[in-house]
């Protein structure tokens, strides 16, 4: 079973993100980038499927030169191959999904795994758009995946419950937290990943259809308000929560 995993190189969630001078992008200097945490679940699931059923795990990432670092992380976890779609600048997700679909066309796969979303722009669109571009079914935010002959059964979390979905293969699945417990890249894996070659394909340049106009920081929080003490303060608290905070 050959599995394709799409991964993204994103700022570490611990990093303090600053807006760059142009007001439309973030400062990448001095920010530590990592393999997108949801993609780690996707890689882990692919490795487990390969361990159970044989085949190969290929990683695919679109992004600048540095994206190779996340590909190396995935290789160090145990993926067999990595393909880097070299894109110098940012694309909107649909354009990117089409570019990845074109690249995926050159790689044999029985199923595709992605993270549910990238933690940088949080769009949660790529996996589904990729499926559409490839005319494949997709199941998003899965927490369990069972592969049978020519089909798969996935569980996904829905509002206060679980949904069990069966789909034919090939299909695209996006991984939700809880799908598995991703392994750490072992020292041996890291040393071996160093030897593996990352295949490069040029990204066909097309204009982004979406442009970021402006980035802004969230409003800094102002201090709390003490309404009063004891039971006597409750009616006023309820009124404020209802009328001012509008949460009730």
């Amino acid at each position, binding site marked *: 079973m050959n599995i394709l995993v799409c991964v993204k190189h994103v700022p570490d969630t*611990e990093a303090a993100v600053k807006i760059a001078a142009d007001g439309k992008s973030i400062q990448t200097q001095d920010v530590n980038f990592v393999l997108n945490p949801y993609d780690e679940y996707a890689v882990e699931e692919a490795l487990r499927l390969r361990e159970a059923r044989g085949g190969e795990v290929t990683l695919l990432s679109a992004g600048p030169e540095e994206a190779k*670092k996340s590909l*190396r*992380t995935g290789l*160090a976890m145990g993926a067999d191959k990595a393909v880097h779609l070299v894109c110098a600048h940012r694309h909107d997700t649909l354009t990117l999904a089409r570019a990845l679909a074109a690249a995926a066309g050159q790689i044999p796969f029985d199923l595709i795994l992605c993270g549910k979303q990238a933690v940088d722009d949080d769009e949660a669109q790529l996996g589904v758009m990729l499926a559409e571009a490839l005319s494949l079914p997709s199941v998003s935010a899965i927490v369990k995946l069972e592969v049978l002959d020519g089909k798969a059964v996935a569980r996904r979390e829905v509002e206060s419950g679980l949904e069990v979905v069966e789909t034919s293969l090939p299909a695209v699945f996006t991984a939700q937290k809880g799908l598995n417990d991703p392994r*750490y*890249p*072992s*020292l*041996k*894996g*890291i*040393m071996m990943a*160093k030897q593996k070659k990352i295949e490069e394909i040029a990204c066909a340049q097309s204009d982004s259809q979406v442009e970021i106009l402006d980035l802004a920081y969230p409003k800094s929080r102002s201090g709390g308000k003490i309404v009063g003490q004891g039971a006597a303060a409750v009616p006023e608290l309820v009124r404020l929560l209802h009328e001012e905070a509008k949460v009730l």
Partner: protein
Amino acid sequence: MPIPDLYRLDELFTEEQRLIQRTVRDFVDEKILPGVRQWNRDAVFPVELIPEMAALGLLGATIQGWGCAGVDYVAYGLIAQELERGDSGFRSFVSVQNGLSMYPLLAFGSEEQKDRWLPPMARGEVVGCFALTEPDFGSDPGGLITQARRTAGGWVLNGVKRWSTNATIADLAVIWAKDEAGVIRGFLVEKGTPGMTAPEITGKLSLRVSVSSEVHLDDCHIPAENALPGAVGLKTALMCLNQARYSIAWGAVGAALACFEEAVEYAQTRIQFDRPIAGFQLVQAKLARMWTEITNARLLVLRLGQMMDQGKAHHAAVSMAKRYNVQTALETARTCRDLLGASGIVDDYHVFRHMANLESVYTYEGTHDIHTLILGQELTGLAAYA
């Protein structure tokens, strides 16, 4: 919040070294830090984590072959640093397995011994220990009195060892004893060999997440093939210590960083006299000093690691780093404990545990003062031990 990397030390490491560091850091965050307070209270080393450390490739990390990862010494240093950010007990476990058990096999063992023991040691199935120190011979190991006498089929060992890390849980002990001619030699004694027992030392107030033991050898017969052919002379034992001291020098940085990060955060949030204590000059003086000292310590071991990788590290250079870095870490831990006030004495915070651990680290593998004397001798040509 991680402290800023003012000297951009991160840029001095390769991509692989940083990835290895990150792997160990994540392991420590997820597997060690959540449990360490309880293990410390209970004075237990969680043996269930041994297979996990092995799966990561931490055991025998620098060895090429025998199923080991074969990383460079700088990467190994970062492993030690991250482990000791968790607790000195874990770094001690790895230092003993790698530097004091696998290294003597690699350096002084026969091909059969290496093939037999190194692979299961890398897999964590065989835990090693190293017994040089005796009740009456600590800083002066050359005086040791454990005896090795030749027999028809091998050797018989008699004596008492003390302070052997891991001995109670070990499957293979590297025992140092004197032959009839008074020459110190290294021997392998397998767990369960009649005549060897390894009771645990209890009541420790330091390095509680680590097993420390006595080793009693009472007419303990071992076959001839269990002598390490190359381990002849005190110098060979000291070569093993050099390996372990290297990892200790890096590990101390990790303990210091753990205390420092905790203290910086505490100082920024603890309000006294209507302002965070971090806003007082006396507190800032302490922070500035510690930050500088830790940076020094990190640069020292990085250079030492590069020399280790080039095979150019003088043993006195290792002594300098062990001495300076452990002293720095211990002083940092004490100052951080002070900055946390009363909170610093409870185990809700990590500082006190690190501070107590570092008391052992200051003493073992050559006390601080013994390393002072090694440096003194190197510099002046005059030995001042006796």
